[in-house]
């Protein structure tokens, strides 16, 4: 690809201006023994060829029809309005750097401000940052905030419900490897919130729950915040932003920090990334938040404008004393979420949430009626949103292989790996993109697969 525009004549003129004869003379500071290695890389190709090569590579993936996939567990197939990618493809947005020059970055800054505004209202909290890498790292930053806040009162314990996404818990544990005093506990077995809250004590920095939880169910959240607060701990909630179109937000039941994976808001699954970490909290914690914050101000003529603010928290100013090391985060994904939420609006998001609820309940009822299957056997009393647990008559790995090979269906997430007590169980996600016919096909296929031994 002609990536470098220079002609031979221009190059010669520039070299002469610098006072060297050959480009190699620009690198005399590089030790000769390592200079100009022979790299074992494939030879270059043209744009036509890479296009063909990528299609060939992509063809080695199973040709997935999203409406024939029932996988969720933290990444979802939702409908993405055409407006979202239209906005994302604006080169002025996606080829820009972090908006440190506000006079020529008002577009991104205002979009981030609007993203923050919509996230605050959706979560019923007072302040949202401008994004984290993904839901798990947003949660890790929330936990770090709680630990920093609790440092003076020797609060070093994080209590986790085991119904928080297993990978999120794993990421938090990795993040805390550098803090030898911090402990993460509570998620060893079961997901009984009463048992968990009974462990809250004076050393607890935060109680972390997910609702709808990893199994898709709404937790009994009433009174949780009070129990945490009475002991001086924070309540951190992981949630699903789509659910908040119809169901109550974390701020309404007392969460101090809410985080979420924002991929469901107009971002493709893309094999797991890039996704969007949503983070919101109360104004009392604003100076401890990590990540960028877009704020409103005025220019010298008094016109409204936006800047990145409270930069004194950030690494480029505070260095070792910064609240976090965040620089590049997930702005373009926040922009996607802003375009998504603006397009759907209040009514659209409510309808999506209701469709997810209705369709998943239809699927659950149909599957529950099959011989040898049970739905949410681990907690039948809890209401669910768009995902539910299915106990299978055969190992999940066999069921999924048969679904894919014989019916072209991607089945649910095999829960046995993360939860030994849920061996032979899968987590099924149903959203607004699934028609009744697609659900019926899944149900019929499950019924047939189950009959075989």
């Amino acid at each position: 690809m002609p990536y470098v525009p220079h002609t031979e004549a221009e190059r010669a003129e520039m070299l002469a201006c610098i006072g060297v004869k050959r480009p190699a003379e620009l690198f005399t500071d590089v030790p000769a023994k390592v200079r100009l290695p022979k790299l074992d890389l494939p030879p270059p190709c043209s744009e036509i060829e890479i296009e063909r090569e990528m299609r060939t590579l992509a063809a080695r993936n199973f040709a997935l029809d999203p409406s024939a996939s029932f996988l969720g567990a933290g990444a979802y197939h939702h409908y993405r309005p055409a407006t979202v990618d239209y906005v994302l493809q604006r080169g002025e947005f996606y080829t820009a750097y972090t908006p440190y020059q506000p006079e020529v970055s008002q577009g991104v800054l205002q979009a981030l401000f609007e993203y923050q505004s919509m996230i605050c209202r959706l979560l019923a909290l007072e302040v949202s940052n401008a994004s984290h890498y993904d839901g798990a790292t947003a949660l890790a930053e929330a936990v770090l905030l709680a630990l920093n806040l609790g440092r003076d009162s020797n609060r070093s314990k994080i209590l986790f419900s085991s119904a928080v996404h297993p990978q999120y818990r794993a990421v938090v544990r990795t993040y805390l490897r550098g803090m030898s005093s911090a402990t993460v506990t509570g998620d060893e077995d079961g997901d009984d919130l009463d048992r968990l809250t009974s462990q809250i004590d004076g050393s607890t920095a935060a109680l972390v729950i997910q609702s709808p939880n990893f199994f898709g169910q709404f937790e009994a959240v009433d009174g949780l915040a009070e129990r945490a607060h009475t002991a001086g701990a924070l309540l951190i909630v992981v949630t699903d932003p789509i659910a908040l179109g119809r169901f109550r937000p974390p701020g309404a039941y007392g969460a101090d920090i809410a985080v979420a994976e924002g991929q469901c808001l107009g971002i493709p699954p893309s094999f797991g990334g890039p996704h969007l970490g949503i983070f919101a909290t109360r104004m009392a914690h604003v100076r401890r938040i990590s990540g960028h914050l877009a704020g409103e101000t005025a220019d010298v003529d008094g016109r409204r404008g936006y800047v990145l603010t409270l930069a004194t928290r950030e690494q480029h100013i505070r260095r070792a004393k910064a609240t976090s090391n965040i620089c590049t985060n997930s702005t373009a994904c926040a922009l996607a979420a802003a375009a998504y939420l603006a397009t759907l609006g209040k009514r659209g998001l409510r309808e999506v949430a209701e469709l997810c609820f209705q369709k998943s309940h239809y699927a659950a009822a149909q599957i529950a009626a099959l011989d040898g299957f049970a739905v949410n056997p681990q907690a039948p009393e809890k209401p669910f949103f768009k995902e539910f647990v299915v106990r299978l008559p055969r190992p999940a790995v066999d069921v999924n292989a048969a679904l894919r090979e014989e019916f072209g269906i991607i089945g649910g997430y095999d829960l046995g790996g993360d939860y030994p007590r849920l061996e032979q169980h899968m987590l099924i996600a149903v959203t607004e993109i699934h028609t009744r016919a697609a659900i019926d096909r899944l149900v019929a296929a499950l019924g047939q697969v189950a009959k075989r031994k």
Partner: protein
Amino acid sequence: MDKIGPKAAPIPTLYELSVRGRSGLDLPASDVPQAPLPAAELNQDCDLPELSQLDVVRHFLALSQRNFGVDTGFYPLGSCTMKYNPKINEQLARLPALAETHPLQDLDSVQGNLALMHALQQWLAEIGGFAGVSLQPAAGAHGEFTGLLMMRAYHQDRGDSRRTRILIPDSAHGTNPASCTMAGFTAVEIRSDARGNIDLDAVRAACDASVAGIMMTNPNTLGLFEEQIDEVVRLVRDCGGLVYGDGANMNALAGIARPGDLGFDVMHFNLHKTFSTPHGGGGPGAGPVGVSQRLIDFLPAPVVAMDSGRAGEPRYVLASPKKSIGRVSTFFGNFGMFVRAYAYLRLHGGEGLRANSEHAVLNANYLRVKLRNTFPVPFDRMCMHEFVCQGAVEATGVRALDISKRLLDYGFHPPTNYFPLIVPEALMIEPTETESKPTLDAFVTAMQAIAAEAASDPDLVKSAPHKTPVRRLDEVRAARQLVLCDRAKAAGG
């Protein structure tokens, strides 16, 4: 850029545009029987704005017109490598057979994705001279944090828990010390010497049994190749420390030298700098880490491996390194960026990478020589992909910030300013290889014109910019009277 000048009206926010009852998208009616909603779990109202689809499109289009990207114009932002983001990359990353794949699918159904990731791991290892690569970190700073956690795990694994300090040059990016703190280390600042290198005596004095390692940016943030890098690496190794490389400046070295060959144990790559994936207005990027044999067992899990025991077409699997530090993000990292970086690497090959680095360095030195008589270059020797000059114009009171703002009026994005911290009034200029000589010459002309303006009419420069949609913004007010959420109430909300 929108050139409306100083009378540009603010763009109303989504909430100001909201009209009760409007909607931008129709959804299908439910085709299943209605299940009762759990009354106790319902919300009152989610209070999102209500707009027509055309309102939404015009809103974001108007916003985009008040934003400057590489596609808009020259963006010589030092240490950020604002090079051209090929459009084919965007198209490929959106192929449904890639973009629609779910990260938890059975591995047999995503062999194409795994093959791509495996190739990218191999190629990055080859380019950096490393034994292994994890693609999982989502950004450069995330890669730093990951690398430091691996260094910590390495020392602990050897039963050496005394190593609590990380040496960091005073020219380092702010992310370096911030990442150290997150990883539980103490950052120790090391001064630079008169030639812009890290001060060897200071390194020597700091090296003892409490040193876990050093974080080196090479070329450093002055754009200079560390002339005594061999000696620095030897000193740190001799005291039992590890060498971390900040790969932010790899665009000078790809195909020129391999950090692994220089003795680096771990380095992050910024795919959004060196490998042409877009910066996205502040992400998403990707910050894969490469490691030497010493750290390979500590890489985040999972990595992609080839199942060797099979004949025919290779099968790819996930593997967990023996002493892995664990996950640093969900799933596999920013796969969409891997697709773009893969395409970039295939389009260029090894020779192309070297040519790109050479031209990045050629362009930087050309600007350095053209500008040094107007704006002094404190460490004036052959630079790599960027250089630092001083933006103050003597006896006029005009500062680097003013020069930067006046550049906006000339249609250029300013250089990074006031960084590195060791150069007063720093302007850090990184042109990248994709800018043509006419563009560079136009930039030189603008810089010279601004210097002349600073002498003849300093107020013009000090009050710049004049042609942007907003002029200088009150950052103090933004921080003191925090408005982080739109106060306009959605109509009917």
